[in-house]
């Protein structure tokens, strides 16, 4: 049951209208998204399985999703720190600051 729930898809919509589908358990790697989608509190986002990220551009949301996916794959203690692939390569300087803000906001 819980694995089904973890495996279903949630929609993240960026401010400029891009829509990203990610697995729920991936999205929940972000504390803020997790709270947003929490069934217990059942805010409108949780009811519709859709999170509108109205302050972030599509490019930023895309990186965010990539990072959450990266975290979901590697952040489980199976690899040592030096064995982890380098994520910083993927960070374009153009979006770095915006990403920094988003990371703080979304708690990831």
């Amino acid at each position, binding site marked *: 049951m819980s694995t089904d729930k973890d495996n279903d898809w949630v929609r993240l919509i960026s401010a400029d209208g891009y829509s990203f589908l990610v697995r729920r358990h991936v999205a929940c790697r972000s504390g803020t998204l997790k709270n947003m989608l929490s069934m217990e509190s059942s805010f409108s986002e949780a009811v519709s399985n859709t999170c509108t990220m109205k302050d972030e551009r599509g490019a930023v949301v895309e990186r965010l999703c990539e990072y959450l996916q990266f975290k979901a794959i590697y952040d489980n203690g199976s690899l040592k720190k030096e064995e982890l692939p380098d994520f910083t390569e993927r960070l374009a300087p153009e979006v770095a600051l915006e990403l920094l*803000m988003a990371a703080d906001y979304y708690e990831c």
Partner: protein
Amino acid sequence: MAAAARRGIKPKIKPPRKLGPEFSAEDTWAKLSRNIVEIQNHNAANLSYEENHRFAYNMVLYKHGETLYKGTCQLIANHLDKLASEEIIPVFPAGSSDDPVQRSQAGETLLKALRKVWDDHISSLSKLRDVLAYMDRVYTKTANVPEIWDAGLQLFVKHIIKPPIEDHVISAALTQIQTERDGYVINRSAVKGCVDVLLQLHDPHDDSTIYKRDLEPAVLRESEMFYKLEGERLLETCDAPEFLRRIEERFTQEDSRVHHFLSSSTAAPLRRIMEENLISPHLSTIISMPNSGLDVMIDLDKFDDLSRLYSLFIMVPAGLPSLKKALRETIVRRGKDINASGDIADAEDMPEEEFEANRAKGKAKARPTNTGSQTLQLALKWVQDVLDLKDKFDQLWSRSFRSDRELESSMNEAFETFINLNEKSPEFISLSIDDNLKRGLKGKSDAEMDTILDKTITVFRYVTDKDVFERYYKGHLAKRLLLGRSVSDDAERGMLAKLKVECGYQFTQKLEGMFHDMKISADTMQAYRAHLAKTTAPDVEISVTVMTSTFWPMSHSAATCTFPEMLIKASKSFEQFYLSRHSGRRLTWQPSLGNADVRVSFNSRKHDLNVSTFALVILLLFEDMPDGEFLTYEEIKAATSIPDGELQRNLQSLACAKYKVLKKHPPGRDVNPTDSFSFNADFSAPLQKIKISTIASRVENNDERKETKDRIDEERRHQTEACIVRIMKDRKHMTHNDLINEVTRQLASRFQPDPLNIKKRIEGLIDREYLERCPDRKSYNYLA
């Protein structure tokens, strides 16, 4: 920036989009607070989490965290006050109603209301926590205030758990518990809901939960009062088993209560209260309750009640000791009763002869007049009673007292006490073994026999004067062996092995010597018969048992007699044979221990009589006499030179018992020196073989007992001296106390030596210059 350098392009970093001057803390808070109220009103589904989270985020980001935090707390407080006045205040129990059902229902409603408010509060609080996550993460840390969740709980304590609400809640919970104790059904989940709430809340000043702070003490106080009264009430209205049953029920009830709707932390103190009020003060009352206390339960074999008593008693520290004491007392009392029933017979010690005569008939069943046989029966009964008592308590111990080791040892102590109170117990035990080995074991399997003997051994184990037992056992064993009365040799050896295990090699050494003698004698007799086959045999066929005098107990009381010619011939023939095989030995004849088969012709028919050797000697005097001639007692005595006691005994069994081979003049039951006897030629009996007079085991009379006691005392003196010398030879020098202790320890396996006697022995040894007193007057030297 390794990545950037590799690409070789100067990266252009775009600044993040700034919030314009359009941000206004007041506006944001106004919107957010409106939404918080919405959340509290269960309308979260209509709200966007993202939006509210952003409000909170922005407020914290633009340094309005404090406004946000305080405002939120205020909203929570307002909401709680509203809930209290809407949900809880209206359901306060209206005054004191006398109907327990009504009261309990009112209480239940209140508890449910509290739970409802709590659930409501927690649900909105958790949403707020989600929304204000950023505030918790950033603001609370720097401002050093509790996170919003904890703040919410504290607000609950402050606004709900306060007088008068709390008082009402606690008294409602107590009412529920009391209602259940009174035997009514309550809604346990309502109480549990409330208890759970109190368990999750903490006192703002220290770390203890509200439950621990307020509810638990109240529950305990209430319980103490209740159980104090309950204990006294039950004691007045119930008998002991019922009382125990009720108490046990109370314990189970409270256990389930604690388990189902109180905190497990309450279990221990609550239990202690129950133990202190229901059990501890009533221990001795329960045990000694007239007509239903411990004694009665034991009498009636109430295993369940007793095991209940045990399990309740071991809960309290004073329980086991008082149970031990009571058990000891009851066992000793029962034991004394058994002893007392044995003592009645002591008063009527009677002539042995009559008893002998009775045994002569080969019947175990005694005539009512035959008190001697009764004494034997009493001895057997005593052992059987002790065994039964032991069985009873063993069963009790394993079935009701969970084989408690401490109880076992005090039970053993009690058995030891009363068994040793009866100074005849070693004799009785030996008699019982004798009886079993002689007839009791006939037709029983080896295993059954073994259990019977094992049981007797358990009684034997309690006896401190093992040497007294040894003396009796030796006597009984000798008689069994000589008269061939033992049922089975295996059983005898089995018994011997058991005694060896109990008391060691030394104890059984002589007994084994007796067995050995029997075997050697059998071999000797075979050789003798072979020898006779080659030479001329004497007229009388004899069978001889050669006994090593130190092994056998009877060599001392050597009653002799003048053998008639034919017996002298026979005995001389054996003597010659024996001394030719073993030179340098001395043979002494013990006619008092032998018996003989003799064929006698009466008027009607011939009978084979089995008589003692003495009786044979007497009978032979009449062999050549004409019918109707008399021999006076004195004449018989002069002719046979049998000592008076033996003579009287044998004459009595020949002339006064069931088979009257001789006629006594005048007739009567007792033999007097003035009587005279004649051969009873008219004697007739249905049986061809008749057994007359056997030396049967029996309880000693007072004189014999005194003699036995003297002999034992003498033996003890020797043993004590030997022991002292043995120790001193080893140690050379020893203080008085050490010596006494060591001697006591070494002799304990045989008897309980009296220090005074040891001291006398030491003095004796000093006189004989085995030891010398050291100048310090407290220790001794061994003189080689």
